[in-house]
């Protein structure tokens, strides 16, 4: 009797590290299930941080780290977290990781820390992080959850950096301002690549002050959503 049961028992397939399903977890949030343009989460920081590219890159890296590892830890603990305090426990995990990021940044790169101090704390309130923990990590295995977290963080980062590039170039005329690789692109002096004071084609150009305000990010994201939906047939019926 026992032998038959053993033979009939299905052998549990060992899940590959980067099989097709795993890769899908990393690539879906880039386009089909992008946290900002499709899930519409994490908009707040996308508006606030994106006036410059360099801080946006730093925040994106921080979000990838926080989302990935909080997803990992939540998933590891998912069978032990009492249902009554589920959200509180998730919040503690996120807050702890964000504090780790803050302390590390303060120690390694103080000027960047000063520039971003408010925004880093706001990662705790970023809906994407909590959203993925609730929607995925609480019901999935650790490695998968980690990939999902990283994928969503990267999807968020891609949009953030895209918006920031547009806002910085048209709002300030520079790229990567505040970093060691600052580029001055268009502006009214000889420091810029395109000197509007002397250029015959672009003499009329001056920085677009709307780009400096958060409202511009809203317009840009709206246009991104529109463009994405026009080209991505899978998103036609998604509300």
């Amino acid at each position, binding site marked *: 009797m026992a032998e038959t049961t053993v033979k009939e028992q299905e052998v549990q397939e060992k899940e590959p590290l980067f099989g097709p399903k795993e890769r899908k977890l990393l690539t879906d949030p880039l386009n089909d299930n992008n946290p900002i343009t499709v899930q519409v989460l994490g908009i707040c920081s996308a508006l606030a941080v994106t006036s410059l590219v360099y801080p946006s890159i730093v925040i994106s890296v921080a979000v990838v780290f926080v989302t990935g590892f909080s997803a990992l830890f939540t998933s590891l603990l998912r069978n032990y977290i009492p249902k009554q305090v589920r959200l509180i426990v998730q919040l*503690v995990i996120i807050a702890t990781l964000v504090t780790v990021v803050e*302390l590390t940044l303060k120690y390694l790169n*103080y*000027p960047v820390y000063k520039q971003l101090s*408010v925004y880093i704390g706001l990662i705790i309130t970023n809906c994407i992080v909590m959203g993925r923990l609730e929607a995925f990590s609480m019901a999935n295995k650790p490695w998968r959850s980690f990939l999902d977290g990283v994928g969503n963080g990267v999807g968020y980062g891609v949009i953030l950096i895209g918006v920031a590039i547009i806002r910085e170039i048209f709002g300030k005329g520079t790229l990567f301002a505040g970093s060691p690789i600052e580029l001055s692109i268009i502006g009214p002096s000889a420091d810029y690549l395109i000197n509007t004071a002397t250029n015959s084609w672009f003499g009329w150009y001056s920085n677009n002050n709307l780009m*400096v305000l958060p409202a511009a990010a809203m317009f840009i994201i709206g246009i991104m959503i529109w463009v994405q939906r026009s080209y991505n047939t899978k998103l036609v019926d998604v509300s």
Partner: protein
Amino acid sequence: MNNNGYVLTFILIMTATVAVLLTGLREATKEGAARNEDIFNKRAILTAIEDKLDGSVKDMSDEDVIQVFESDMQQIVLNMEGNVVEGKKAEDINMAVERKKPEPNRMLPLYIYEGDGNKTYILSVRGSGLWDEIWGTIALENDLNTIAGAAFDHAGETPGLGAEIKDNPKFSTQFKGKKIYDDSEFVSVDVVKGGAPTGAEHAVDGISGATVTADGVEEMLYRGIQYYEPYLSQLKQSSMVMEPAQ
């Protein structure tokens, strides 16, 4: 799972673990972070006298910054009457904290740079911008009238608008050569919306779209430099007395 005892135990263990982890990390990074903060503040002060240094502040290493302060920088703390407060170093004064005290109780940091043979007096001022606080470092030449340099920073002004007081070097370089006294009357430096008249000794151009922040800078300079007046007048009088008859 729904057992209250289990929930309590879980929460207690989690809280304890997180507390130990974060406290440990903070302790490990505390010294490094404090040193970083100190150097960051010192760099801000050196930015006001960048012209007098060899090279730009950005290119200076952390050790260079500390070296300048140790060998070429005298640090004094003043009270509102213009007297020196003994036993305190200017770098320990936190302007944000001082600003919360009632005016008569505040202390003022004063740095005197002597690295190029002359005395350059570096004052710290703090005020209100549009959204949050703004602060600045003003360096005076040894005539205690001409501005040698200025550097500004802010807590939360709008990038591209109010934040230009820090991000745009053109704003702060305007202050070089301006004078804060008209004969013997203290007039500070005005920040003029629409642009200061050419050659004005006591005015600089404002920033388009950042009127409130620019007004904040003007007010901050007027009040902040005035706090140092008692001490500066003392210095002027004593230097006049000590000038050798030639």
